[in-house]
């Protein structure tokens, strides 16, 4: 059986020192993905997001590239500007089918967004959870199914049906 990058990573993670370094990088990349999804859900460009946040576009690019190391406070501020707050969860470090989940709790409305379990609730109506699952997006077909599911969930949650 062929050795894959994940097999190699599992081997390296047996070293606690390596696991620490990997954990730090993984957190940065996870946040980068979350921030990009939040930005796109609001139809913002990196430049307009930078203007909104009062930071430079290259720094936004660095954050979205997983190369910046913002403090937790900075992360909170960035997300608050977009109408979100950060919800953290722990999950197994080892890459498994569901390796980690990063959630954004919506404090403001967002447009319909295919990666959210629920979206497009009007502001203040009900708190909703946008699950940016770190696993389980194997294809666009699958995303479409998820999108339909979330539409149904929103209708029930918002009392529209």
């Amino acid at each position, binding site marked *: 059986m062929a050795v894959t990058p*994940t097999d190699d990573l599992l081997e390296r993670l047996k070293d606690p020192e390596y696991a620490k370094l990997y954990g730090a990088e*993984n957190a940065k*990349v996870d946040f980068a993905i979350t921030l990009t999804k939040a930005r796109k859900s609001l139809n913002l460009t990196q430049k307009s997001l930078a203007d909104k946040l009062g930071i430079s576009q290259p720094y936004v690019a660095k954050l*979205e590239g*997983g*190369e910046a190391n913002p403090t937790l406070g900075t992360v909170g501020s960035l997300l608050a500007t977009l109408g979100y707050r950060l919800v953290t969860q722990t999950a197994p470090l080892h890459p498994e089918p569901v390796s980690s989940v990063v959630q954004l709790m919506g404090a403001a409305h967002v447009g319909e967004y295919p990666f959210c379990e629920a979206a497009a609730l009007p502001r203040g109506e009900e708190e909703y959870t946008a699950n940016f699952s770190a696993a389980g997006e194997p294809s666009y077909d699958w995303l479409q199914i998820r999108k339909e599911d979330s539409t149904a969930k929103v209708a029930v949650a918002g009392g529209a049906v």
Partner: protein
Amino acid sequence: MWQVIYYKRPNGRQPAKDWIEDKDNNSIRPNIDAKIQALKREGLLLRDNRVLRPIEERRRRQRGRSRVIHGFFELTGKNWRIATYHDVKKDMFLLFWGWRKTRQSEEREVEGAIRFLEEYKSRQEE
């Protein structure tokens, strides 16, 4: 989840694996691993972050050429790149080759990765 594997040459070598495991890359390996796992989770969506970029874009900018190789990307880190190919038929990413990013080395490294890609494609046709 997307499948991500190393490309294996006819002689059994796996250039991307060899490069990642090179001792000179000890310091960047955690970052590489994190990006590969992100590729596994997010796949083509990593293009939104510019963590996954079509290689042909840079080639066009640097040399005024417009050579489009569908599905050929670079996975990017601060000072490293890994050439990867999204095989649509098999729905998986193959890692071909990695390099440290310098202005001098880049073109040569990309050319090398393209040779591996052509080798892979010719073997698929056999």
